[in-house]
């Protein structure tokens, strides 16, 4: 055990001591009859790549491999290479190979992610009002075929298109496995296609650009047999986009001794309401926190 204390143990971070300690405990129950002269591992291994680990010495020994989400034990002949299968090294991270006979020796190596095979592409938000600065963001996390995060720098091409018009094209390198962008929303309501690609890998997301708050809200009205019929002009935002159907417009008719209100949804760009009021009234209009004009309507002749 003294080799372990002097060489490996002292160099380990506290979190890693546990697995090493486990290996040393296993070592106590290992085979005897051989003398381990050394374990030689590659400095790094690409995930999923079959890898030989050479041992030195003579006789039989127990081989342990401890890594992220895996532990393996095999009987080996010292002096022969231990062949690690693809499935043994699928998860990226730090592995410890331990060979035990009368004594134990170990060596650590790293498994790194393979080339990107998929990516997670998160775009936020799913809806955004037009002309909002820094309102749209996207994040890409590349993964290899074993779902290991690829930490090596990669270039991600982000492209934003609205209809057929390209709004943005920006290559961005990943740092620590993440690439991201942030940009403003466009001026026109509609779908915003957001694409990300790494070589032949590509993913697309859609952000719905919606009209902003109503702008210059105006109403017109006339007296009918049932009261007053009031309706808005085409409701649009300050960029000229029609405000989404279903948006509530509140009509308020104030008269001498009371008032009437109707919350009417915009349908086909226009909100209208019937207000049962026989006398002269002042009709005002609002949508959310936006106010519109006032309209004076006389009483029944």
């Amino acid at each position, binding site marked *: 055990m003294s080799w372990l204390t002097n060489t490996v143990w002292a160099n380990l971070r506290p979190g890693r001591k546990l697995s090493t300690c486990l290996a040393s405990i296993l070592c106590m129950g290992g085979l005897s009859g051989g003398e381990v002269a050394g374990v030689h591992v590659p400095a790094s291994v690409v995930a999923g790549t079959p890898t030989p680990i050479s041992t030195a010495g003579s006789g039989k020994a127990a081989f342990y491999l401890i890594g992220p989400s895996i532990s393996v034990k095999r009987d080996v002949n010292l002096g022969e290479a231990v062949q690690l299968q693809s499935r043994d090294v699928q998860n990226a991270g730090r592995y410890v190979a331990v060979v035990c006979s009368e004594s134990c020796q170990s060596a650590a190596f790293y498994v790194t992610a393979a080339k990107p095979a998929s990516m997670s592409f998160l775009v936020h938000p799913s809806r955004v009002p037009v002309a909002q600065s820094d309102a749209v963001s996207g994040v890409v996390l590349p993964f290899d075929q074993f779902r290991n995060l690829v930490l090596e720098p990669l270039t991600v091409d982000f492209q934003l298109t609205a209809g057929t018009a390209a709004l943005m094209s920006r290559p961005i390198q990943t740092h620590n496995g993440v690439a991201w962008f942030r940009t403003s929303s466009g001026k026109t309501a509609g779908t915003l296609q957001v694409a990300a690609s790494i070589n032949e890998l590509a993913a697309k997301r859609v952000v719905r650009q919606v009209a902003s708050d109503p702008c210059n809200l105006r109403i017109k009205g006339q007296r009918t047999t049932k009261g007053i019929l009031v309706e808005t002009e085409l409701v649009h935002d300050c960029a000229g986009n029609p405000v989404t159907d279903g948006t509530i417009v509140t009509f308020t008719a104030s008269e001498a001794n*009371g008032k009437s209100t109707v919350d009417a949804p915009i349908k086909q760009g226009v909100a209208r309401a019937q207000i049962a009021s026989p006398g002269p009234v002042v009709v005002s209009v609002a949508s959310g926190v936006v106010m519109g004009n006032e309209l004076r309507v006389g009483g029944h002749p």
Partner: protein
Amino acid sequence: MKRILPIVIVVVTAALMALALTGVGRSATTVGIVSGSVLPGFTPRASTPEQAVANLLIDVKRRNWDRSYSALARISNGADEPSFKRDWTGTDGSLRTFSNLEGYDARPLHATNDEAQMRLQLHWSTPVGPIQEVRDVQVRREGEVWKVVWPQIQTASVPAQVIPVNYLRWDVVTGSAEDEWGSRNIDAPHVRIISMNAVDSADGSIVMGEVVNEDTIPAFVNVNATLVDSAGNAIDDETSFDKISHVLLPKQVSPYRIDFPNLSLKNVKNVRMDVKASLVPASADPVIGIMDQKLATDAQGRNVLRGQLLNEGGQTVNISHVIASFYDNTGKVVWVSDGYVDRALLPQTSEPFAVEIPRALSGKVQNFHVVVNQYSLGKS
């Protein structure tokens, strides 16, 4: 001794039963006010206006429509039996159809030898809690018996018509489990609390204000409040429950009110507000107009906001729930009040509503805003 005790028990029980059954409607709690729990039992002869009213309400409670109707005074514009029954049981899936008469108070307003006017305060139990209804009824003496006059109630008559509706509805489609992570996320609607006011009242503390849906899709909204003491510890937390219009269409504003019973604001250092919004399928129809809103005093002398709900659509609204926020001269919300309308809103017809304002606040109220929650059977 073995025989005496059972006999005494039987006699006392019978006496108490007789007292309870014949004493219905006579257990006055306040001088001049007759109260009753309308328990089933024997019906005494209506020798007084109070007894006539009590007998009527007992039969109504028993749903003995034939007998209750036969005890009414015969007048030219009196209700026919079906409309009398409809008046008590409700129609069209209204709140009244789910309600039960639990009790009443009857107060004489005016009486002569042959006629009397009584004010009934009817206590209904409903799925949304107890509801009080006030009715003034005429009682007339016919021979030795007093009879209640029940005029024909004018119910809304909807003519056959075609109402064009440009149907507008939102449905929510959720992604399947196989979808790639992050590929089909839909953000929750953006809603914002635009005002908040915390006040002490006789029953406890009240947190109220208004919330707006700033998004372009409908939102199901709930507002929570947590009262925090000076040490930063939460004292209590409550939700707006039904004192809010939960489904908010885009840009719609709703009042909310959160009650903390038996809790004073004296010990409260801070109020933490939290508004939760989620996607919900919704329909923009029918539109309900709130007409003739005015501050007034009701028959009992209470300050109320009253008006008419006008169904401008072509569908029946079974239950309407009115929520009103009241503002002072600085535009601050000083009170939020609500009430249910117990009759269904038929297409193109209107129903009256009234919500109460505390007497202490009636002088401060300068403006108000009313929204209507609507429930239609078989509709989400």
